[in-house]
């Protein structure tokens, strides 16, 4: 416990965000044994370090006159967790993802990624933060003039990986997402599902600790979507924390993972192994509802006072 308080993390170490593949998966949080977290009170510093993504009372205001996009959000997503972010358009899902990537600054409150308050990351270190985070979008965002291989290799080239490392890694990742033998196709020669697999391969090729997916199945039919979910699940199994914003109720109901529901910038539900729509009628404030939702092993929205609940 003391070690954690004595060593405040000042800079994001990209290694702490990265997952090393292989039999001995590297979980940086092993330094902070889970047993301790279950048995006793954790110091705040330690909780900050253990969580992969942690929002502390985060408010984001785009327009002073309108309501905040995010309103005093407290949320903690642990390393290796798989969480759905659900809610209507405009509920704050995309803002949440943007804050994690430091595309925007929180108006107030603190966002921690891998134990580091992103507000303290200097602009020239932001790329290092982003190397630890993979992102997938609804519209794939592939480069149309590049082949599948080149699209995935691009993500490695631009951060200066050597040609031999690229040659070794890309086929491996393409295999993980189920695109073996399609290295030399162009994006327009692929189906939507396959294109999204390429995008996922690109997002995880640098072994990020976090994968953010912004409605990755929004353009896909249900069967293809389930295939994509299989890929994301596999990546999650390998130790990557996955946060997926989605409207797709079938998928959420099928996966039975943690569900965080946002409405008008407020978390109105945070359940583990949950369904797209809560089985409990949603009335009134969120905090009381969550307490009534009968969660077993989900982290509560992290307010320092509520930590004993875990």
């Amino acid at each position, binding site marked *: 416990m003391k070690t954690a308080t004595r060593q405040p993390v000042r800079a994001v170490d990209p290694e702490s965000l990265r997952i090393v593949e292989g039999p001995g998966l590297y979980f940086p949080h092993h330094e902070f044994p889970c047993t301790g977290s279950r048995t006793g009170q954790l110091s705040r510093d330690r909780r900050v370090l253990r969580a992969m993504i942690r929002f502390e009372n985060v408010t984001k205001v785009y327009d002073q006159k309108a309501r905040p996009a995010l309103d005093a959000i407290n949320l903690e997503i642990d390393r290796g967790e798989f969480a759905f972010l659900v809610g209507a358009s405009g509920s704050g899902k995309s803002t949440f993802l943007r804050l994690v*990537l430091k595309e925007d600054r929180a108006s107030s409150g603190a966002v921690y990624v891998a134990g580091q308050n992103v507000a303290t990351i200097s602009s*020239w270190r932001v790329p290092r933060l*982003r190397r630890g985070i993979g992102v997938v979008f609804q519209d794939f*965002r592939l480069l149309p003039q590049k082949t599948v291989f080149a699209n995935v290799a*691009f993500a490695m080239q631009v951060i200066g990986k050597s040609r031999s490392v690229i040659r070794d890694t890309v086929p491996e990742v393409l295999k993980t997402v189920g695109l073996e033998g399609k290295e030399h196709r162009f994006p327009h020669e692929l189906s939507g599902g396959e294109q999204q697999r390429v995008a996922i391969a690109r997002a995880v090729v640098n072994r990020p600790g976090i994968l953010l997916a912004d409605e990755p199945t929004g353009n896909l039919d249900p069967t293809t979507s389930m295939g994509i979910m299989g890929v994301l699940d596999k990546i999650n199994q390998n130790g990557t924390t996955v946060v997926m914003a989605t409207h797709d109720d079938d998928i959420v109901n099928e996966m039975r993972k943690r569900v965080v529901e946002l409405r008008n910038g407020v978390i109105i539900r945070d359940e583990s192994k949950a369904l797209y729509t809560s089985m409990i009628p949603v009335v009134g404030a969120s905090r009381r509802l969550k307490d009534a939702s009968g969660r077993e092993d989900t982290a509560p929205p992290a307010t320092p006072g509520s930590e004993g609940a875990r």
Partner: protein
Amino acid sequence: MRLAFILGEIGGGLRRNLSMVVSVILVTFVSLTFVGAAGMLQLQINQMKGFWYDKVQVAIFLCSDGATSASCATGPVTEEQQANLQTLLESAAVTQYVNDFTFESQDDAYRHFTEQFANSPIVDSVTPDQLPSSFRINMEDPEKYQVISEIFSSQPGVETVIDQRQLLEQLFTVMNGASLVAVLVAGVMIVCAILLIATTIRLSAFSRRRETGIMRLVGASKTVIQLPFILEGVIAAVVGAALASGTLWAVSKFFLGDYLSQQYPDTAFISPGQTLLLAPALLILGASLAGISSLLTLRKYLKV
């Protein structure tokens, strides 16, 4: 690897934006040619100053038959007046300002005149009598012309004291004016170049926003994202600067060197080698113009 990647990006960008790149090259070429022309004029002025100031300085023209000025009312200079002047020139009051002096007789003057205007019919109508004899003074300090002028102007037998530098100064004024015009034109052209480079880089950044967006997301550093764009502008500007240097060199070699120096064999023109001294300055100027304007543009249009 990263270098190869950046070079590839630059190549792609230049190819995709070819017409804009060509216009950037041409605009920097023209503007830097004007900058270089101004520089050449200044070099030429310095060259001529060095060449002439050693030779011509102050001339004391003595009264001749044709002299019309009031100081020559008594007729042409007498031998006695001339001897007095020579004594005065050798006196301590004057020698402190004078390196040395020579006497140019009317015959000497006529010979120089006929040499200088060998091809002109005016030679036939001039006789040695009409040309004034003179003392040619090489000054210790050319700026002390006033002292000599005051001492000698009022002496009998002196028609006029001329600082020949003043004749040259007129020429230099004209040349300075020309180089000022060149600098002004260059200034306008440089503004054009800066705006054009900014627009080109903006277009280039816009046409590649997909790539740069992905680069941002996967954590490419600012350098890797921005460098290709900046280098694109810099390369175009450097090509323009190289063309401008080449043009200036050609002007000094073929126009000054082969043509003008034959027309005016007495005049020392700058050599092509001297012109090439301007080339590094033009290259650096072009590169920094492009670099700075693309950097500022990117700051606005390419978020990293």
